[in-house]
């Protein structure tokens, strides 16, 4: 739909222009003050009648009844909380999987579409940090990036590159489970062989006083992965894959996060023993039939990981209007019996910790990036809207000027964005 893309591009450019203008405004005094009836810092207890002061894109102060410096720009909201963190996904990628099974050298920065409407949706849904990884359809899918949904070129969006490597145990393209993991092992063996041979050649070259052979840039990501400098995001679609995944990780001593299918809840204690963190499937409830009685048993996936003490992040799922959002996931998780604080943590601080960026995002603490959501009410109240979004101290979203949202609510095409 070229029309839609154009519209999205226009809207994003408009949003970008708005962001620039508002930031220029804020920079007159250099301080942004956000006043809220309630602040949910996630990392600590909630603050009533709280104030957050933002300077140079960072949170400078947070607390109840702080004095607001003269000349500060003031924003007000009913409830304020940190921007949400998407731990895993391929947002903005139209073709997230390479056809070739082992492609550690590709990076999603080269494939992501910055004006994809999904980034605009992210802002509307309050997501301020997004992990864009290759899909699960390969063996070694390539490296990902961490982005913020700001601007219309990848350079303005980037937070971290590369962010991690996608490995997948999902058999696709005619492979079965045996060949899938065999491909994975072989890729690591091939890299090992390459590294050993290179070391030999380089030792030889050094001895001869010749210039030493450079590392093949295509092998750089694998080198970082094996050295533990890059995290593996290992996808396990079923529970049987988890055991193999854990053995594989043991062999290669990789730093890893498991991305799990719904029935992997069975391995929660095993995963806890290994001290790994997980990203859960968007499907939070799994029904299984007891073979003897035919009785249907409902498993609420997050509860198993909560009980086992495994750190988990929730994923949102594509689906009916609004069910894609993390609000929906967190609120329904609460309806399934997850505690409120755990549900909110699983869409903010936990994914930030899992992604290794908790020093910058995921909670409202002094010194962290000022990625702040201004809400109309409690985040788990189904009628709450994201009113404004501040990323690194700049307002990048205002519901009042969200023309696409207005179309989704009224059915009428908004007049052209300026």
């Amino acid at each position, binding site marked *: 739909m070229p029309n839609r893309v154009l519209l999205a591009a226009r809207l994003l450019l408009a949003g970008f222009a708005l962001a620039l203008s508002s930031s220029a405004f804020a920079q007159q005094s250099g301080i942004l003050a956000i006043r809220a009836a309630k602040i949910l810092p996630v990392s600590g207890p909630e603050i009533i009648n709280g104030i957050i002061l933002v300077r140079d894109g960072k949170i400078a102060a947070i607390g109840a009844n702080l004095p607001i410096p003269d000349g500060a720009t003031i924003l007000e909201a009913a409830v304020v909380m940190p921007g949400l963190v998407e731990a895993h996904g391929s947002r903005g990628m139209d073709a997230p999987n390479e056809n070739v099974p082992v492609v550690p050298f590709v990076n999603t920065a080269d494939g992501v579409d910055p004006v994809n409407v999904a980034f605009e949706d992210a802002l509307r849904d309050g997501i301020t940090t997004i992990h864009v990884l290759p899909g699960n359809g390969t063996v070694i899918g390539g490296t990902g990036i961490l982005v913020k949904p700001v601007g219309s070129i990848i350079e303005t969006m980037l937070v971290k590159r590369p962010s991690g490597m996608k490995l997948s145990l999902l058999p696709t393209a005619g492979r079965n489970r045996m060949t899938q993991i065999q491909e994975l092992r072989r890729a690591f063996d091939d890299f090992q062989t390459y590294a050993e041979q290179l070391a030999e050649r380089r030792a030889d070259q050094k001895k001869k006083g010749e210039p030493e052979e450079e590392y093949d840039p295509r092998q750089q990501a694998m080198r970082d992965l094996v050295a533990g400098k890059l995290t593996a995001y290992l996808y396990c679609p079923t529970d049987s894959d988890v055991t193999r995944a854990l053995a594989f990780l043991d062999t290669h001593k990789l730093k890893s996060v498991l991305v799990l299918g719904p029935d992997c809840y069975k391995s929660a204690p095993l995963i806890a023993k290994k001290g790994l963190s997980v990203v859960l499937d968007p499907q939070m409830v799994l029904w299984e039939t007891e073979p003897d009685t035919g009785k249907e048993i*409902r498993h609420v996936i997050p509860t198993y990981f909560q009980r086992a003490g495994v750190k988990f992040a929730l994923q949102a799922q594509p*689906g009916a*209007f609004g*069910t*894609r959002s993390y609000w929906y996931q967190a609120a329904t998780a609460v309806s399934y019996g997850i505690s409120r604080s755990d549900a909110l943590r699983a869409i903010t601080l936990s994914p930030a910790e899992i992604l290794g960026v908790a020093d910058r995002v995921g909670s409202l603490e002094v010194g962290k990036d000022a990625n702040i959501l201004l809400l109309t009410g409690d985040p788990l*109240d189904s009628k709450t809207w994201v009113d404004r979004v501040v990323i690194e101290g700049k307002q990048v979203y205002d519901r009042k000027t969200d023309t696409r949202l207005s179309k989704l*609510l*009224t*059915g009428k095409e908004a007049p052209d964005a300026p």
Partner: protein
Amino acid sequence: MNCKLTLRRQVSRDGRERDGLKSPLCDLRPSFLRKRSGCEGHSSHATPCRPKDDPAKPRSEGCQPLATTAHCLLLFGVVLLFALLLPLSAAAQRLAIRNARLLPVSGVAIENGTILIENGKIRAIGANVAIPAGTQVVDAGGKTIMPGIVDANAHFGLRDTLNEQASEVTPQINILGQLAPRSGDFTHALSYGVTTACLTPDSANVVGGQCGVVKMAGKTPAQMLLKNVAGIRAALGNDTANGNGGFFRAGANTLGSIYLRRPNSRMAAVWELRKALDEAAKSPMLTSVRNGSLPLHVSAHIENDIRAAVTIADEFKIPHLVLDEGSEAYKCADLLAEHKVQVVLTPSADPQTEGPDGSSPIFNTAGLLEAKGVLIAFGSNSNDPAPLLQWASLAVKHGLSPEAALRALTLNAATISGVAERVGSLEVGKDADLLLLSGDPLELTTHIEKVFVNGQVVYRAE
């Protein structure tokens, strides 16, 4: 007055006996074959002498021949006898749930109310209900009770393909022939608070067949059955146009047929529907559609197809048109209101991506239709049960009023499915199908704790 009341009770008791024992196991014969037995109704559950299935008409009205003085006296005597025997037998099962926030849907919310259930039916409801001795009493602790949700367009709990390949017009087949009573889907549906579903054929055929209404509890089709024929399902759109293109053009929902036949285009789909209705005399089912005793469900997504459905219904003066899915219904809300089309929404598409049939779904279709006075309900339209309550909650966020949302989930859906005299609201005499919720049903954090069907707990969340 007294006599009329007892008469109604007697008739309804009789109806239940017929349903449980005498009615053939999920009798799928079309109504014209059953007419001679004196029952012209489309529902096998209908009382023997009701002329038509009209939810607006009370049962006793259809039973005028019975209401002679002699009958009345006789029945009164029988009931008196029962009333005398009742305290001796443990036959009457009574359950009272007190201290609950009752949302009857048919009326205003009752704070701190009591609902009395007797033999699977709602016996009394209100703030002050006298609880007879020997009643099991449960304290709801201030929790909320609402009627069980009715899914007005569902495909779950059914086996195999839901599209007949023999012809593109198959009004004679009934979806309940595919019913799989032991399917886990019914438990999953209960976990979402759905207690009744109108099962519909899929949309690869222009006229797919008859819809049937079942409850989510029961081990046999007869126990589940609420209404055998609740409507005729037709479809306009991509599925219809592509599904019949022969083996090499199998559509998404079909295996593909070895026969190359119509329709392969939208124009042919419309032509087929028009032809089927034109030749309705050949089919008792389509005759019922034309004379309004059965609703015509048309599944359509894009505005074009929706308008085509309304045009055809207008041409043939079809009194009762139901639009299923209706992703772009908001674009012609005025037209739907003007023609009194009822809409079963399936907000299955994410506005971020293109909707089914290339439609442009939006967030607030339900709210915009409500504003125009269109009667709406929700339907999962999927092989899996859907969280309709959560969908309604989001619809409320996007503009639907909370009252309309609850009504759409229950009473409207029951009305569209032709079962509003049995389910869809908390009213005296209706089946005790209800949900016990931890709080406001339209909050996403609210949790469905217990589900009752016919007064029995059939689902309990751990």
